[in-house]
Protein backbone atom coordinates (compact mmCIF):
# COMPACT_ATOMS: atom_id res chain seq x y z
CA UNK A 1 0.00 0.00 0.00
CA UNK A 2 2.78 2.37 0.95
CA UNK A 3 4.50 1.77 -2.37
CA UNK A 4 1.22 2.38 -4.17
CA UNK A 5 0.71 5.75 -2.50
CA UNK A 6 4.28 6.69 -3.30
CA UNK A 7 3.71 5.88 -6.95
CA UNK A 8 0.48 7.86 -6.90
CA UNK A 9 2.19 10.93 -5.49
CA UNK A 10 5.12 10.66 -7.85
CA UNK A 11 2.52 10.49 -10.63
CA UNK A 12 0.89 13.66 -9.39
CA UNK A 13 4.25 15.41 -9.29
CA UNK A 14 5.13 14.60 -12.90
CA UNK A 15 1.46 15.13 -13.76
CA UNK A 16 1.86 18.75 -12.66
CA UNK A 17 4.67 19.16 -15.17
CA UNK A 18 2.56 17.62 -17.93
CA UNK A 19 -0.27 19.90 -16.89
CA UNK A 20 1.96 22.95 -17.22
CA UNK A 21 3.20 21.88 -20.63
CA UNK A 22 -0.32 21.03 -21.77
CA UNK A 23 -1.45 24.46 -20.60
CA UNK A 24 1.19 26.19 -22.66
CA UNK A 25 0.04 24.19 -25.69
CA UNK A 26 -3.59 25.12 -25.05
CA UNK A 27 -2.68 28.78 -24.60
CA UNK A 28 -1.34 28.99 -28.13
CA UNK A 29 -3.98 26.64 -29.55
CA UNK A 30 -6.84 28.77 -28.25
CA UNK A 31 -5.75 31.90 -30.05
CA UNK A 32 -4.29 30.39 -33.22
CA UNK A 33 -5.78 26.87 -33.53
CA UNK A 34 -2.27 25.57 -33.96
CA UNK A 35 -0.21 23.17 -31.86
CA UNK A 36 3.26 24.47 -31.20
CA UNK A 37 5.45 21.41 -31.70
CA UNK A 38 8.46 23.38 -30.49
CA UNK A 39 6.94 23.99 -27.05
CA UNK A 40 8.96 21.19 -25.44
CA UNK A 41 12.25 22.27 -26.98
CA UNK A 42 11.59 25.86 -25.93
CA UNK A 43 11.09 24.61 -22.37
CA UNK A 44 14.33 22.61 -22.64
CA UNK A 45 16.19 25.69 -23.83
CA UNK A 46 14.75 27.75 -20.98
CA UNK A 47 15.97 25.10 -18.56
CA UNK A 48 19.47 25.37 -20.01
CA UNK A 49 19.30 29.14 -19.59
CA UNK A 50 18.41 28.54 -15.93
CA UNK A 51 21.32 26.11 -15.59
CA UNK A 52 23.70 28.62 -17.15
CA UNK A 53 22.56 31.34 -14.76
CA UNK A 54 23.22 28.96 -11.88
CA UNK A 55 26.71 28.35 -13.26
CA UNK A 56 27.23 32.13 -13.22
CA UNK A 57 26.70 31.88 -9.48
CA UNK A 58 23.17 33.18 -9.07
CA UNK A 59 21.11 31.78 -6.22
CA UNK A 60 18.51 29.19 -7.24
CA UNK A 61 15.41 31.37 -7.01
CA UNK A 62 16.94 34.40 -8.74
CA UNK A 63 18.15 32.15 -11.57
CA UNK A 64 14.67 30.57 -11.65
CA UNK A 65 12.87 33.92 -11.94
CA UNK A 66 15.37 35.38 -14.38
CA UNK A 67 15.08 32.30 -16.63
CA UNK A 68 11.29 32.70 -16.63
CA UNK A 69 11.60 36.36 -17.54
CA UNK A 70 14.09 35.66 -20.34
CA UNK A 71 11.79 32.93 -21.68
CA UNK A 72 8.82 35.29 -21.62
CA UNK A 73 10.66 37.93 -23.65
CA UNK A 74 12.09 35.30 -26.00
CA UNK A 75 8.63 33.78 -26.53
CA UNK A 76 7.21 37.17 -27.47
CA UNK A 77 10.14 37.87 -29.75
CA UNK A 78 9.72 34.53 -31.55
CA UNK A 79 6.07 35.35 -32.22
CA UNK A 80 6.83 38.87 -33.44
CA UNK A 81 9.80 38.00 -35.61
CA UNK A 82 9.18 34.45 -36.85
CA UNK A 83 5.45 33.76 -36.64
CA UNK A 84 3.91 37.11 -37.47
CA UNK A 85 5.01 36.96 -41.11
CA UNK A 86 3.18 33.62 -41.50
CA UNK A 87 0.11 34.64 -39.49
CA UNK A 88 -2.16 34.45 -42.53
CA UNK A 89 -0.32 31.58 -44.21
CA UNK A 90 -1.84 28.08 -44.49
CA UNK A 91 -1.67 25.76 -41.47
CA UNK A 92 1.01 23.60 -43.05
CA UNK A 93 3.37 26.57 -43.33
CA UNK A 94 2.99 27.19 -39.61
CA UNK A 95 3.53 23.53 -38.80
CA UNK A 96 6.77 23.58 -40.76
CA UNK A 97 7.88 26.71 -38.91
CA UNK A 98 7.17 24.93 -35.61
CA UNK A 99 9.18 21.89 -36.66
CA UNK A 100 11.97 24.21 -37.79
CA UNK A 101 11.98 25.86 -34.37
CA UNK A 102 12.06 22.43 -32.73
CA UNK A 103 15.13 21.38 -34.69
CA UNK A 104 16.87 24.72 -34.24
CA UNK A 105 16.40 24.83 -30.48
CA UNK A 106 17.55 21.24 -30.13
CA UNK A 107 20.64 21.78 -32.27
CA UNK A 108 21.59 25.14 -30.75
CA UNK A 109 21.27 23.75 -27.22
CA UNK A 110 23.57 20.86 -28.13
CA UNK A 111 26.00 23.25 -29.79
CA UNK A 112 26.20 25.66 -26.83
CA UNK A 113 25.96 23.23 -23.92
CA UNK A 114 27.01 19.90 -25.54
CA UNK A 115 25.07 16.69 -25.52
CA UNK A 116 26.41 15.33 -22.25
CA UNK A 117 23.79 14.83 -19.56
CA UNK A 118 23.94 17.38 -16.77
CA UNK A 119 22.49 17.35 -13.29
CA UNK A 120 20.04 20.12 -12.46
CA UNK A 121 19.60 21.00 -8.79
CA UNK A 122 16.31 20.92 -6.95
CA UNK A 123 15.55 23.92 -4.75
CA UNK A 124 13.86 21.64 -2.25
CA UNK A 125 16.44 19.98 0.06
CA UNK A 126 15.86 16.27 0.52
CA UNK A 127 15.67 16.60 4.31
CA UNK A 128 13.17 19.48 4.32
CA UNK A 129 10.44 19.42 6.98
CA UNK A 130 7.71 18.78 4.39
CA UNK A 131 9.39 15.63 3.11
CA UNK A 132 7.82 12.44 4.39
CA UNK A 133 8.36 8.79 3.71
CA UNK A 134 5.54 8.98 1.16
CA UNK A 135 6.58 12.02 -0.80
CA UNK A 136 10.03 13.38 -1.49
CA UNK A 137 10.65 17.07 -0.93
CA UNK A 138 11.02 17.67 -4.65
CA UNK A 139 7.68 16.02 -5.43
CA UNK A 140 5.86 18.20 -2.92
CA UNK A 141 7.77 21.29 -3.94
CA UNK A 142 7.21 20.93 -7.67
CA UNK A 143 3.49 20.26 -7.20
CA UNK A 144 3.30 23.39 -5.04
CA UNK A 145 5.16 25.51 -7.59
CA UNK A 146 2.98 24.24 -10.41
CA UNK A 147 -0.22 24.90 -8.49
CA UNK A 148 0.96 28.40 -7.53
CA UNK A 149 1.69 29.16 -11.14
CA UNK A 150 -1.71 27.88 -12.25
CA UNK A 151 -3.36 30.04 -9.60
CA UNK A 152 -1.44 33.12 -10.75
CA UNK A 153 -2.44 32.44 -14.36
CA UNK A 154 -6.05 31.96 -13.39
CA UNK A 155 -6.05 35.27 -11.50
CA UNK A 156 -4.42 37.02 -14.44
CA UNK A 157 -6.99 35.79 -16.96
CA UNK A 158 -9.97 36.17 -14.67
CA UNK A 159 -9.36 39.48 -12.92
CA UNK A 160 -7.14 41.75 -15.01
CA UNK A 161 -8.20 43.86 -18.02
CA UNK A 162 -5.22 42.49 -19.96
CA UNK A 163 -6.31 38.91 -19.27
CA UNK A 164 -9.84 39.73 -20.37
CA UNK A 165 -8.50 41.32 -23.55
CA UNK A 166 -6.43 38.22 -24.28
CA UNK A 167 -9.46 35.98 -23.88
CA UNK A 168 -11.52 38.28 -26.10
CA UNK A 169 -8.81 38.33 -28.76
CA UNK A 170 -8.66 34.53 -28.75
CA UNK A 171 -12.44 34.11 -28.94
CA UNK A 172 -13.32 36.70 -31.51
CA UNK A 173 -10.32 38.48 -33.04
CA UNK A 174 -12.36 40.56 -35.51
CA UNK A 175 -14.60 41.91 -32.82
CA UNK A 176 -11.64 42.43 -30.50
CA UNK A 177 -10.00 44.70 -33.08
CA UNK A 178 -13.21 46.72 -33.28
CA UNK A 179 -13.01 47.54 -29.57
CA UNK A 180 -9.38 48.56 -29.97
CA UNK A 181 -7.55 45.46 -28.70
CA UNK A 182 -4.22 44.99 -30.49
CA UNK A 183 -4.84 41.34 -31.34
CA UNK A 184 -1.44 40.68 -32.80
CA UNK A 185 0.25 41.79 -29.58
CA UNK A 186 -2.11 39.62 -27.57
CA UNK A 187 -0.85 36.65 -29.59
CA UNK A 188 2.71 37.64 -28.77
CA UNK A 189 1.79 37.91 -25.11
CA UNK A 190 0.30 34.40 -25.31
CA UNK A 191 3.57 33.12 -26.73
CA UNK A 192 5.49 34.85 -23.96
CA UNK A 193 3.29 33.29 -21.30
CA UNK A 194 3.48 29.86 -22.91
CA UNK A 195 7.28 30.07 -22.98
CA UNK A 196 7.35 31.19 -19.34
CA UNK A 197 5.11 28.29 -18.29
CA UNK A 198 7.34 25.93 -20.23
CA UNK A 199 10.38 27.31 -18.39
CA UNK A 200 8.78 26.51 -15.04
CA UNK A 201 7.86 23.01 -16.20
CA UNK A 202 11.36 22.40 -17.54
CA UNK A 203 13.15 23.53 -14.39
CA UNK A 204 10.82 21.48 -12.20
CA UNK A 205 11.26 18.26 -14.20
CA UNK A 206 15.01 18.64 -14.86
CA UNK A 207 16.10 17.35 -11.42
CA UNK A 208 14.12 14.17 -12.16
CA UNK A 209 14.99 13.46 -15.81
CA UNK A 210 18.36 15.32 -15.90
CA UNK A 211 19.33 18.00 -18.35
CA UNK A 212 20.09 17.15 -21.96
CA UNK A 213 18.87 18.52 -25.30
CA UNK A 214 16.39 15.65 -25.75
CA UNK A 215 14.94 15.75 -22.26
CA UNK A 216 11.61 17.19 -23.40
CA UNK A 217 10.85 14.88 -26.32
CA UNK A 218 9.01 12.33 -24.18
CA UNK A 219 7.54 14.90 -21.84
CA UNK A 220 6.03 16.86 -24.71
CA UNK A 221 4.25 13.68 -25.82
CA UNK A 222 2.72 13.36 -22.36
CA UNK A 223 1.83 17.05 -22.61
CA UNK A 224 0.03 16.40 -25.91
CA UNK A 225 -1.81 13.46 -24.39
CA UNK A 226 -2.80 15.61 -21.40
CA UNK A 227 -4.04 18.48 -23.56
CA UNK A 228 -6.03 16.12 -25.77
CA UNK A 229 -7.46 14.20 -22.82
CA UNK A 230 -8.71 17.40 -21.20
CA UNK A 231 -9.90 18.94 -24.45
CA UNK A 232 -7.41 20.96 -26.46
CA UNK A 233 -9.42 24.18 -26.17
CA UNK A 234 -9.97 24.01 -22.41
CA UNK A 235 -7.22 25.22 -20.03
CA UNK A 236 -8.85 23.57 -17.01
CA UNK A 237 -9.18 20.34 -18.94
CA UNK A 238 -5.50 20.50 -19.85
CA UNK A 239 -4.51 20.82 -16.21
CA UNK A 240 -6.75 17.98 -15.05
CA UNK A 241 -5.64 15.92 -18.06
CA UNK A 242 -2.02 16.49 -17.04
CA UNK A 243 -2.54 15.10 -13.55
CA UNK A 244 -4.54 12.13 -14.87
CA UNK A 245 -1.86 11.28 -17.45
CA UNK A 246 0.86 11.58 -14.80
CA UNK A 247 -0.86 9.21 -12.41
CA UNK A 248 -1.94 6.69 -15.06
CA UNK A 249 1.50 6.63 -16.63
CA UNK A 250 3.21 6.11 -13.30
CA UNK A 251 0.88 3.39 -12.01
CA UNK A 252 0.89 1.48 -15.30
CA UNK A 253 4.68 1.78 -15.40
CA UNK A 254 5.08 0.48 -11.87
CA UNK A 255 2.55 -2.34 -11.87
CA UNK A 256 1.55 -3.33 -15.39
CA UNK A 257 3.89 -2.65 -18.26
CA UNK A 258 7.19 -1.65 -16.66
CA UNK A 259 9.11 1.59 -17.06
CA UNK A 260 10.50 0.80 -20.53
CA UNK A 261 7.06 0.89 -22.11
CA UNK A 262 5.79 3.98 -20.26
CA UNK A 263 5.98 6.29 -23.26
CA UNK A 264 3.67 3.96 -25.17
CA UNK A 265 0.95 4.95 -22.71
CA UNK A 266 1.09 8.50 -24.02
CA UNK A 267 0.89 7.36 -27.62
CA UNK A 268 -1.98 4.96 -26.94
CA UNK A 269 -3.80 7.73 -25.09
CA UNK A 270 -3.35 10.14 -28.01
CA UNK A 271 -4.59 7.66 -30.59
CA UNK A 272 -7.37 6.44 -28.31
CA UNK A 273 -8.71 9.91 -27.52
CA UNK A 274 -8.62 11.01 -31.14
CA UNK A 275 -10.61 7.97 -32.26
CA UNK A 276 -13.08 7.66 -29.41
CA UNK A 277 -13.64 11.18 -28.12
CA UNK A 278 -11.79 13.81 -30.18
CA UNK A 279 -13.15 16.70 -28.11
CA UNK A 280 -11.56 15.27 -24.94
CA UNK A 281 -13.17 15.05 -21.53
CA UNK A 282 -13.97 18.74 -21.13
CA UNK A 283 -13.61 20.10 -24.65
CA UNK A 284 -16.33 21.87 -26.53
CA UNK A 285 -18.06 20.12 -29.36
CA UNK A 286 -18.21 22.69 -32.07
CA UNK A 287 -21.79 23.75 -32.47
CA UNK A 288 -22.49 26.92 -34.36
CA UNK A 289 -25.70 28.81 -34.23
CA UNK A 290 -26.78 30.18 -37.59
Amino acid at each position, binding site marked *: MEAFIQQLVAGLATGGIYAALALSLVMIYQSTHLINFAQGEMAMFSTYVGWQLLQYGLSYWSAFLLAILISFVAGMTIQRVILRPVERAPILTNVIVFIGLLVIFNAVAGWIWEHTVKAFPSPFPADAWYATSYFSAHNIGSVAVTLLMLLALFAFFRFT*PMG*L*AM*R*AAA*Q*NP*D*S*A*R*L*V*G*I*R*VSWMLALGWGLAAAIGAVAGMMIAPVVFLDPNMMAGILLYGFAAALLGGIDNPWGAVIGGFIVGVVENLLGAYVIGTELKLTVALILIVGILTVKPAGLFGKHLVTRV
Partner: protein
Amino acid sequence: MSRLLEVSKLDASYGATKVLFDIAFSLEEGGITAILGANGAGKTTTLRALCQVCRTSGSIRFGGKELVGMATEDVVRLGIAHVPDGRGTFTGVSVEDNLRLGAYVRRDKRGVAEDIERMYERFPRLRERRHQQAGTLSGGEQQMLAISRALMLRPRLLLLDEPSFGLAPLIVAEIFEIMRRINTEDRVSMLLVEQNASLALDLADNAYLLETGRVVISGTSEKIKNDETVRKAYLGF
Protein backbone atom coordinates in the same frame (compact mmCIF):
# COMPACT_ATOMS: atom_id res chain seq x y z
CA MET B 1 -23.59 71.68 -37.71
CA SER B 2 -20.08 70.73 -38.68
CA ARG B 3 -18.99 67.95 -40.93
CA LEU B 4 -17.83 64.91 -38.97
CA LEU B 5 -17.09 62.44 -41.74
CA GLU B 6 -16.15 63.13 -45.32
CA VAL B 7 -15.63 60.21 -47.67
CA SER B 8 -14.43 60.70 -51.22
CA LYS B 9 -13.23 58.48 -54.06
CA LEU B 10 -13.38 55.47 -51.76
CA ASP B 11 -12.58 52.08 -53.28
CA ALA B 12 -12.50 48.89 -51.25
CA SER B 13 -11.58 45.32 -52.07
CA TYR B 14 -11.30 41.86 -50.59
CA GLY B 15 -8.23 40.28 -52.12
CA ALA B 16 -8.51 40.75 -55.86
CA THR B 17 -12.25 41.44 -55.80
CA LYS B 18 -13.17 45.09 -55.84
CA VAL B 19 -16.39 45.77 -53.96
CA LEU B 20 -16.72 49.55 -53.67
CA PHE B 21 -16.18 51.96 -56.54
CA ASP B 22 -15.58 55.68 -56.10
CA ILE B 23 -17.92 56.11 -53.13
CA ALA B 24 -18.47 59.60 -51.78
CA PHE B 25 -20.63 60.67 -48.89
CA SER B 26 -20.52 62.84 -45.81
CA LEU B 27 -22.04 62.95 -42.38
CA GLU B 28 -22.93 65.89 -40.16
CA GLU B 29 -22.00 65.93 -36.48
CA GLY B 30 -24.99 64.74 -34.47
CA GLY B 31 -26.83 63.39 -37.48
CA ILE B 32 -28.09 59.98 -38.48
CA THR B 33 -27.31 58.83 -41.99
CA ALA B 34 -28.62 55.64 -43.54
CA ILE B 35 -27.00 53.51 -46.21
CA LEU B 36 -29.56 51.51 -48.15
CA GLY B 37 -29.29 48.90 -50.82
CA ALA B 38 -29.96 45.32 -51.80
CA ASN B 39 -27.93 42.28 -50.77
CA GLY B 40 -24.37 42.52 -52.00
CA ALA B 41 -24.56 46.24 -52.79
CA GLY B 42 -21.60 46.98 -50.52
CA LYS B 43 -23.33 48.33 -47.40
CA THR B 44 -21.43 46.22 -44.88
CA THR B 45 -18.19 46.77 -46.79
CA THR B 46 -18.69 50.54 -46.54
CA LEU B 47 -18.75 50.27 -42.75
CA ARG B 48 -15.82 47.87 -42.76
CA ALA B 49 -13.89 50.27 -44.98
CA LEU B 50 -14.41 53.10 -42.49
CA CYS B 51 -12.87 50.91 -39.77
CA GLN B 52 -10.07 49.84 -42.09
CA VAL B 53 -10.96 46.16 -41.78
CA CYS B 54 -10.69 45.70 -45.54
CA ARG B 55 -8.23 47.13 -48.06
CA THR B 56 -9.17 50.65 -49.13
CA SER B 57 -7.94 53.51 -51.23
CA GLY B 58 -9.27 57.02 -51.58
CA SER B 59 -9.98 59.31 -48.68
CA ILE B 60 -11.92 59.02 -45.43
CA ARG B 61 -11.60 62.12 -43.28
CA PHE B 62 -12.96 61.86 -39.77
CA GLY B 63 -12.80 64.95 -37.57
CA GLY B 64 -9.93 66.24 -39.69
CA LYS B 65 -7.90 62.99 -39.64
CA GLU B 66 -7.29 60.70 -42.59
CA LEU B 67 -8.35 57.11 -41.82
CA VAL B 68 -7.17 55.34 -44.98
CA GLY B 69 -4.04 53.36 -44.12
CA MET B 70 -4.62 53.48 -40.36
CA ALA B 71 -4.86 50.32 -38.24
CA THR B 72 -8.37 49.34 -37.10
CA GLU B 73 -7.27 49.58 -33.46
CA ASP B 74 -6.26 53.22 -33.99
CA VAL B 75 -9.47 54.13 -35.80
CA VAL B 76 -11.32 52.92 -32.70
CA ARG B 77 -9.19 55.18 -30.54
CA LEU B 78 -10.43 58.20 -32.53
CA GLY B 79 -13.94 57.45 -31.32
CA ILE B 80 -15.56 55.27 -33.96
CA ALA B 81 -17.54 52.36 -32.52
CA HIS B 82 -18.77 49.58 -34.75
CA VAL B 83 -21.71 47.25 -34.16
CA PRO B 84 -20.63 44.69 -36.74
CA ASP B 85 -22.50 42.35 -38.99
CA GLY B 86 -23.48 39.38 -36.77
CA ARG B 87 -23.21 41.54 -33.64
CA GLY B 88 -19.65 40.57 -32.68
CA THR B 89 -20.57 39.31 -29.24
CA PHE B 90 -17.77 37.86 -27.12
CA THR B 91 -19.82 34.75 -26.46
CA GLY B 92 -17.53 33.07 -23.94
CA VAL B 93 -17.37 35.90 -21.40
CA SER B 94 -20.06 37.47 -19.23
CA VAL B 95 -22.37 40.29 -20.28
CA GLU B 96 -20.56 42.68 -17.96
CA ASP B 97 -17.15 41.68 -19.35
CA ASN B 98 -18.51 42.41 -22.84
CA LEU B 99 -19.31 45.93 -21.68
CA ARG B 100 -15.85 46.29 -20.11
CA LEU B 101 -14.28 45.18 -23.37
CA GLY B 102 -16.22 47.92 -25.15
CA ALA B 103 -14.40 50.42 -22.94
CA TYR B 104 -11.02 48.72 -23.45
CA VAL B 105 -9.28 51.86 -24.76
CA ARG B 106 -10.62 54.12 -21.99
CA ARG B 107 -8.50 54.76 -18.93
CA ASP B 108 -11.10 56.46 -16.66
CA LYS B 109 -12.18 53.61 -14.39
CA ARG B 110 -14.87 55.65 -12.63
CA GLY B 111 -16.42 56.77 -15.90
CA VAL B 112 -16.47 53.20 -17.19
CA ALA B 113 -18.25 51.95 -14.06
CA GLU B 114 -20.80 54.76 -14.39
CA ASP B 115 -21.38 53.98 -18.04
CA ILE B 116 -21.95 50.28 -17.30
CA GLU B 117 -24.61 51.41 -14.82
CA ARG B 118 -26.18 53.67 -17.47
CA MET B 119 -26.32 50.81 -19.97
CA TYR B 120 -28.12 48.70 -17.35
CA GLU B 121 -30.63 51.51 -16.82
CA ARG B 122 -31.26 51.72 -20.52
CA PHE B 123 -31.46 47.94 -20.96
CA PRO B 124 -32.69 46.41 -17.68
CA ARG B 125 -32.59 42.98 -19.31
CA LEU B 126 -28.80 43.20 -19.49
CA ARG B 127 -28.62 43.93 -15.76
CA GLU B 128 -30.63 40.79 -15.04
CA ARG B 129 -28.17 38.79 -17.09
CA ARG B 130 -24.98 40.62 -16.18
CA HIS B 131 -23.11 37.52 -14.92
CA GLN B 132 -24.45 35.22 -17.60
CA GLN B 133 -22.29 34.10 -20.52
CA ALA B 134 -23.11 36.44 -23.40
CA GLY B 135 -23.52 33.54 -25.83
CA THR B 136 -26.62 32.40 -23.93
CA LEU B 137 -28.52 35.63 -24.60
CA SER B 138 -31.36 35.77 -27.11
CA GLY B 139 -30.86 37.55 -30.42
CA GLY B 140 -32.56 40.72 -29.27
CA GLU B 141 -30.59 40.80 -26.04
CA GLN B 142 -27.36 40.28 -27.95
CA GLN B 143 -28.24 43.22 -30.20
CA MET B 144 -28.86 45.36 -27.12
CA LEU B 145 -25.53 44.17 -25.75
CA ALA B 146 -23.77 44.96 -29.03
CA ILE B 147 -25.12 48.52 -29.05
CA SER B 148 -24.24 48.96 -25.37
CA ARG B 149 -20.75 47.58 -25.93
CA ALA B 150 -20.22 50.07 -28.76
CA LEU B 151 -21.50 52.96 -26.63
CA MET B 152 -19.06 52.05 -23.85
CA LEU B 153 -16.37 53.61 -26.01
CA ARG B 154 -18.21 56.97 -25.67
CA PRO B 155 -17.93 57.20 -29.44
CA ARG B 156 -18.32 60.28 -31.60
CA LEU B 157 -19.59 58.09 -34.39
CA LEU B 158 -21.54 54.86 -34.10
CA LEU B 159 -21.59 52.49 -37.07
CA LEU B 160 -24.56 50.12 -37.02
CA ASP B 161 -24.74 47.12 -39.31
CA GLU B 162 -28.29 45.81 -39.73
CA PRO B 163 -29.50 46.21 -36.15
CA SER B 164 -32.87 44.75 -37.18
CA PHE B 165 -31.41 41.54 -38.59
CA GLY B 166 -33.15 38.38 -37.42
CA LEU B 167 -35.23 40.09 -34.76
CA ALA B 168 -38.98 40.10 -34.10
CA PRO B 169 -40.72 43.33 -35.23
CA LEU B 170 -41.58 44.35 -31.68
CA ILE B 171 -37.95 44.13 -30.59
CA VAL B 172 -36.82 45.97 -33.71
CA ALA B 173 -39.16 48.84 -32.84
CA GLU B 174 -37.78 48.91 -29.29
CA ILE B 175 -34.18 48.98 -30.50
CA PHE B 176 -34.84 51.73 -33.04
CA GLU B 177 -36.56 53.82 -30.38
CA ILE B 178 -33.51 53.43 -28.16
CA MET B 179 -31.21 54.40 -31.02
CA ARG B 180 -33.22 57.57 -31.52
CA ARG B 181 -32.86 58.37 -27.82
CA ILE B 182 -29.11 57.69 -27.88
CA ASN B 183 -28.78 60.09 -30.81
CA THR B 184 -30.71 62.92 -29.16
CA GLU B 185 -29.61 62.42 -25.54
CA ASP B 186 -25.94 61.44 -25.99
CA ARG B 187 -25.39 63.40 -29.23
CA VAL B 188 -23.81 60.36 -30.88
CA SER B 189 -23.68 60.60 -34.66
CA MET B 190 -24.75 57.44 -36.45
CA LEU B 191 -24.20 55.71 -39.73
CA LEU B 192 -26.83 53.05 -40.18
CA VAL B 193 -26.85 50.19 -42.65
CA GLU B 194 -30.27 48.62 -43.13
CA GLN B 195 -32.14 46.33 -45.46
CA ASN B 196 -35.39 47.51 -43.99
CA ALA B 197 -35.45 50.81 -45.88
CA SER B 198 -38.64 52.32 -44.55
CA LEU B 199 -37.53 51.74 -40.98
CA ALA B 200 -34.14 53.30 -41.65
CA LEU B 201 -35.60 56.32 -43.46
CA ASP B 202 -37.88 57.04 -40.50
CA LEU B 203 -34.88 57.27 -38.20
CA ALA B 204 -32.29 58.91 -40.45
CA ASP B 205 -31.98 62.52 -41.64
CA ASN B 206 -30.08 61.64 -44.79
CA ALA B 207 -29.65 58.53 -46.85
CA TYR B 208 -27.50 57.09 -49.59
CA LEU B 209 -28.58 54.32 -51.89
CA LEU B 210 -25.91 51.85 -53.01
CA GLU B 211 -26.09 49.62 -56.04
CA THR B 212 -23.27 47.16 -56.81
CA GLY B 213 -20.69 49.23 -54.98
CA ARG B 214 -21.70 52.68 -56.23
CA VAL B 215 -23.79 55.48 -54.79
CA VAL B 216 -26.77 55.91 -57.10
CA ILE B 217 -29.06 58.27 -55.18
CA SER B 218 -28.48 60.49 -52.18
CA GLY B 219 -30.41 63.13 -50.30
CA THR B 220 -32.60 63.77 -47.28
CA SER B 221 -34.72 60.90 -46.04
CA GLU B 222 -37.86 62.80 -47.10
CA LYS B 223 -36.64 63.16 -50.64
CA ILE B 224 -35.64 59.52 -50.95
CA LYS B 225 -38.88 58.31 -49.42
CA ASN B 226 -40.82 60.20 -52.07
CA ASP B 227 -38.61 59.30 -55.00
CA GLU B 228 -40.67 57.24 -57.43
CA THR B 229 -37.86 54.94 -58.66
CA VAL B 230 -36.52 54.27 -55.17
CA ARG B 231 -39.95 53.40 -53.89
CA LYS B 232 -40.59 50.97 -56.66
CA ALA B 233 -37.16 49.32 -56.58
CA TYR B 234 -36.29 49.26 -52.90
CA LEU B 235 -39.16 50.15 -50.65
CA GLY B 236 -41.71 47.94 -52.31
CA PHE B 237 -44.73 50.24 -52.13
